[in-house]
């Protein structure tokens, strides 16, 4: 923090120039929309963390099958909605990064494991979304009152897969970094049920909601 008149004392230890990192070429309206969706995602994830703590003490590892609705399903809903509003590469990354920083600011979930997890999450989302054409083709850009069923299925499957890979990666990182042990059946079922299952359902609902919002509010 800068003192009233002078430089902060820690500046010498962190010599970063003042004018740097020009803001990436997202339009302000797009940035505001991403921030809005990220804020919703954060509220859900924060509540989920608090509820998750309680559920873990009661259900142990089986709690993920309950908290997965908020951890995977609702974020997928929000991300699908956001992609309908701004169907372009980088949107998922900025949204996930914003939620990560909010979690850090309000919950202290910072650290190397969290950075590793968010890094994996961003790479998985952006890669699968781009490879499936969701952010790289006109799939979601065509103005239509409602999405085609094929589009809903495609987006739901891809986002569900993203979440499934994420869940798997999260547990793998926990095994690697925290030396925790998990049974294979648990890893696979958690990935499929909470990631692919809840994620796909959430994404399908989010896509329909996104089209509706695009029609009435944008």
């Amino acid at each position: 923090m800068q003192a009233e008149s002078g430089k902060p004392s820690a500046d010498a230890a962190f010599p970063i120039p003042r004018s740097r990192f020009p803001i990436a070429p997202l339009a302000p309206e797009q940035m505001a929309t991403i921030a809005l969706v990220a804020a919703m995602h954060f509220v859900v994830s924060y509540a989920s963390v608090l509820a998750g703590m309680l559920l873990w003490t009661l259900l142990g590892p089986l709690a993920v099958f309950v908290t997965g609705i908020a951890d995977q399903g609702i974020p997928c809903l929000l991300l699908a909605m956001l992609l309908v509003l701004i169907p372009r590469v980088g949107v998922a990354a900025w949204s996930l990064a914003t939620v990560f920083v909010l979690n850090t600011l309000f919950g202290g979930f910072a650290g190397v494991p969290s950075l590793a997890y968010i890094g994996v999450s961003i790479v998985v989302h952006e890669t699968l979304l781009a490879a499936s054409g969701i952010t790289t083709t006109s799939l979601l850009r065509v103005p239509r009152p409602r999405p085609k069923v094929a589009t809903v299925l495609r987006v739901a499957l891809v986002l569900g897969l993203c979440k499934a890979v994420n869940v798997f990666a999260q547990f793998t990182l926990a095994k690697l970094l925290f030396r925790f042990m998990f049974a294979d059946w648990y890893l696979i079922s958690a990935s499929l049920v909470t990631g692919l299952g809840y994620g796909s359902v959430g994404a399908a609902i989010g896509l329909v909601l996104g089209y509706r919002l695009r029609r009435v509010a944008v």
Partner: protein
Amino acid sequence: MNAALEVMGLGFTFPGRTSQALDQINFTLPTASITVVAGRTGSGKSTLLRALAAWIPRHSAGRMTGSVTVGGLDTRTATTAELARTVGLMQQSIDDQLCATTVAGEVAFGLENLALPVDEIHGRVGAALARFGLAGFESHQTRQLSSGQRQRLLLASLWAMRPRVLVLDEPLSQLDEQGTAALLAELRRLRDEGITIVVAEHRVDQLLPIVDRVLVLEGGRLVGAKPQAMVEAVTVGSPIAGGPTIVAAERIAARYGASSPPVFSDVTLSVAHGERIAIVGPNGAGKSTLLKVLAGIMPPAMGEVRWCDDEAGRPPVGLVPQNPDLTLFSNSVRDELAFGPRQLGLDEAEIARRVATAADEFSLDDLLDEPPQGLSQGQRLRVALTAAATLEPQVLLLDEPTIGQDPEQMHRLFSALVAAVEAGRIGAIVFSTHDAEVARRYATRILPLPAAGEGRGEGGMKRVPTSPPHPNPLPQGERGTGGALERLDARVKIVYLLALSLVSVTVDSARALLIVGAIGMAPVFALRCGWRARALVVGAIAATIWGAVLSQAMFYSFEPRTPWMTIAGVTLWREGARYGLLQSMRLVATTASGIAVCLSTSPERLLAAMTRLGSPATLAFLVTTAMRFLPTMADEWLAIRLAHRLRGYRFRPWKLAAWCIEAGMFAPLVAAALRRATTLAVSVTTRGLDPRAPRTYYDPPSRG
């Protein structure tokens, strides 16, 4: 004449529309003048203002013809920074335009976009806050300011950029008489400083004493240089007195929280059949709160509200809140109007009758199949009002129904309401307004609510209780202050967290893990905070340890292992529990330290530290904006639930339809927020935010 603003042949068509929103507008405005743009709702005033501020055509989809020259700059070719230095725009909703979370950060925002040196930003921030009476508020959250202070803050932010032209969209719409007088004096001072001011306003008469020129728009065309009376002064309906009493409130008082001062006290009011009561008073007098108490949403702190029995069994109240958008969630206007009657359990024939009658009365016949959220502002208000009217309540409560409505719209609306009251479909109407003229025209009785002495800021503005600035489980005041940990540079804390987490995942021996856990918990003891915060930390640590113990007791696979217990057929292993306890130290280290850092540092300060450590500026902007949305979203979510409740909805978890309605509540929340996002985008852009241009980063003073 030295022209500050020159508009030539300006036309604009929104995408997907054939009719022009602006058509062949020509005018020139001199330097140091005040011009009012008058016209009905939808006449193109806001569109014209956005064109003057260069949002159109630079960032808005649509087709513009003609030209706008501001301070010698053609808005089509000038750079964003040049325009930000020349013209400032203040839109209708002040809250949606604030870009930062702190007062100093707000004023600095535009200056940062201009890449001014930090020292100059510091000087300009101080000068602007002093000029607009906000010195000493630098580190305050913008949410903590009263509405009048927030408006002054926005003016200060624009003034700090030293513009030649200021464009203001309906700045009087939410101000009481005192606030209006203060703003008019401010505008006069700004003109005397050489600034050209353009104001779009419905309340033209109040601006007449200070204006130099009036432009009148009609259907997107400039039709005159003087205001015209759009609606004759009329009294709608005939005063009715002596009907049976519906509700009586005796000596009631209201307060938000036991320790806060009363919003109002000793108010006695009775509402009789056929009455139209206007509640008037200055901003912060408690008009909206009184409506909430009457609606039964908020219990009175003193006194009681008594409802008389209604033989027809009608619901007691319908309420239309200040932001009617929050009450609209159905796919069509027809469904929206039918929602309330359906919740009352009426048969389909009666529902259809009510929908048809109300749609006819409020002129919504042509819109029945349209999605309500896609309508214009005036139409959305009409739908919200009609939806409340289909409940045919004993009393219909309207919170500031006139904001943003031109006299003609207002007249149409009140005529329909009066017809419904006179036909007996609505028992009575109680509406709040800060506009004495509206009260005089449309009410049969006026209830003045005087300003209470306590809890008021300057300018008659009250510090309206709102949800906390951040949805942090730690209440304000729980965050530590004054201790060594609190004074430590936030960058040091972030580096410490990263280093500790790195060490925690690299060590393996039991002793090292215990040391890491102890180091991680150390900051918790250095923290000065309340018992609730401490309880949170202890709870989080305990939950972390127990979760790890339980999961590892279940999944432990090394041999030898001995059964500890069996729960529902699942064996838990004793060695696994021990293993989990030890390995949990890694998580404990980062969890405890992370929470301690959060408790000892404000989010703004942590974010500034992250930006200074090199995190991308886009991320900082996104996070700041998200933080701005958080409290608003919480408020709106509550308002949406309330609107559902008042239309007869009760959540019944065993019914699938109830879950669909719950999911549907999401739509108005997002739709309203998306509109906010647009307003914010206009604000940040007209204040010079250019994704491609370099920026300066000013670290404003902040607490904690």
